């Protein structure tokens, strides 16, 4: 049985170009980029090439890209770094209820330090508006953080408008763009974004490398102190294999984004409409059009998400769910609850995320298997019986 990987929002398969760059950085260009000798100089050159490639992907200048160990570090650094740099000016932060935990839990940590955080509610699609952000701003607001695309439901947030509001009020704007970079066109040169987090393994690079974009002139405090790497702003010997791979992956995806997004959007919409028509009482979670090209998130009523995932796994299909049973807590996904879904429908959520290797045949097989699985689980569900009475 051919396995089908539809969990590309969790992580992606490293593409050959990136793997080759990583291997080369491990076996040939293995010097420390801070060293004076030829080995070090070669490593430094590879590092700066990757920086230019990542910068080009988001329309940044090369010197505005600071490599980190991943998206979570970039989020932590942006929020804590900005809060600590600006706490003399104010102690209020605005974010949303649907952020990734890397942002939400960092906000919780800042609250313990005495910062105040406003968590904006979202609409039924998981969207906030620039007006909501503007209304939440106070004289002591120092930072706004709104994700570019939601990791669970794929909804795109209006970050250009939100950034414009922040700019008009002279408040720093950070966006967690971990799910968006490489999958939707972003241009920080043209958009009023001050800080942006990204992660390589979401666009076919290995785990362990990400970056924080810091707009020229924006000062935030360091998160990791030590050596003078990353121009003194992020210490630690650079993870060149992962960074060089991220650079290659960035260059590749930038070149193919338009064509690939059109392909993915078509497959995504085929999967969504197929599931909604073949499985009664199923709903799409997230925005129907303002969503990531590869994200499908549906709730299948009367079925619990983990049971769905196990059944799909046995059919060779890898997916994920916002059910409590898969999160290790008693509550289902905070994103789905914030969108107003009742608990029992949130428990039955299923996320299928497509990627560059996803084929139409795979989508067809999911459309064959999933209705069968849903039917089997519903036949076991007392909720389904009760709904028929």
């Amino acid at each position, binding site marked *: 049985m051919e396995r089908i990987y539809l969990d590309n929002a969790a992580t992606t398969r490293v593409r050959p170009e990136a793997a080759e760059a990583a291997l080369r950085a491990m076996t040939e260009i293995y010097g420390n980029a801070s060293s004076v000798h030829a080995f070090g100089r070669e490593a430094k050159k590879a590092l700066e090439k990757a920086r230019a490639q990542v910068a080009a992907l988001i329309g940044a200048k090369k010197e505005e890209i600071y490599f980190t160990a991943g998206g979570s570090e970039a989020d932590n650094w942006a929020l804590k770094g900005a809060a600590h740099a600006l706490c003399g000016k104010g102690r209020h932060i605005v974010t949303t209820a649907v952020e990734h935990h890397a942002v939400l839990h960092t906000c919780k940590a800042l609250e313990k330090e005495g910062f105040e955080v406003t968590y904006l509610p979202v609409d039924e699609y998981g969207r906030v508006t620039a007006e909501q952000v503007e209304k939440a701003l106070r004289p002591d607001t120092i930072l706004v953080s709104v994700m570019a695309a939601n990791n669970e439901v794929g909804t795109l947030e209006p970050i250009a408008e939100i950034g414009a509001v922040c700019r008009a009020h002279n408040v720093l704007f950070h966006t967690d763009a971990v799910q968006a970079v490489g999958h939707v066109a972003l241009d920080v040169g043209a958009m009023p974004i001050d800080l942006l987090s990204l992660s390589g393994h979401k666009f076919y690079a290995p785990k362990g490398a990400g970056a924080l974009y810091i707009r020229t002139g924006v000062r935030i405090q360091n998160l990791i102190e030590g050596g003078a790497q990353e121009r003194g702003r992020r210490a630690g010997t650079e993870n060149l294999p992962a960074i060089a791979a991220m650079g290659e992956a960035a260059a590749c995806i930038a070149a193919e984004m338009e064509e690939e997004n059109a392909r993915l959007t078509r497959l995504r919409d085929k999967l969504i409409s197929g599931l909604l028509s073949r499985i009664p009482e199923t709903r799409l979670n997230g925005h129907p059009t303002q969503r990531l090209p590869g994200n499908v998130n549906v709730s299948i009523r009367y079925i619990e998400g983990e049971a769905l995932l*196990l059944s799909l796994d046995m059919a060779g299909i890898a997916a994920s769910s916002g059910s409590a049973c898969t999160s290790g807590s008693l509550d289902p996904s905070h994103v789905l609850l914030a969108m107003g879904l009742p608990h029992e429908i949130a428990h039955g959520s299923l996320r299928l995320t497509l990627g560059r290797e996803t084929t139409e045949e795979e989508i067809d097989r999911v459309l064959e298997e999933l209705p069968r699985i849903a039917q089997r689980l519903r036949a076991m569900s007392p909720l389904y019986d009760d709904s028929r009475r």
Partner: protein
Amino acid sequence: MYSEKVMDHFTNPRNVGEIADASGVGTVGNAKCGDIMRIYLKIENGIIEDVKFKTFGCGAAIATSSMATEMVKGKSIEEAMQLTNKAVAEALDGLPPVKMHCSLLAEQALKEALEDYFTKNGLPLPEGFTKPDAEHEEAPEEL
């Protein structure tokens, strides 16, 4: 994460269904928490002649329902009353700590069904009949 036995009972659950003229029915859990179990008993001459279940829940919830029904089928009421969540979990070669809650639900659903049988037949609850309170209890740490 799950034992082979759990996966077996999840994939091929025993005794799924309903009993139209059940002697006792027990429903526990709630959709908000993500699991509901309903157990139907057919009792004749103090023996559980047939048992069926329906479950909305995760893999462990379905597997523990299946195992619990298998363990009491053909047994006397007295024997069925002795069934514990621990015994169900052990019969499944163990459950992850966070899923012990599911086995407690299975025990509770069975005992609710037995209580329903006693009530319907005007019988006093036997001495020593207790039900766990799965909905408000924290899952035990380890098996």
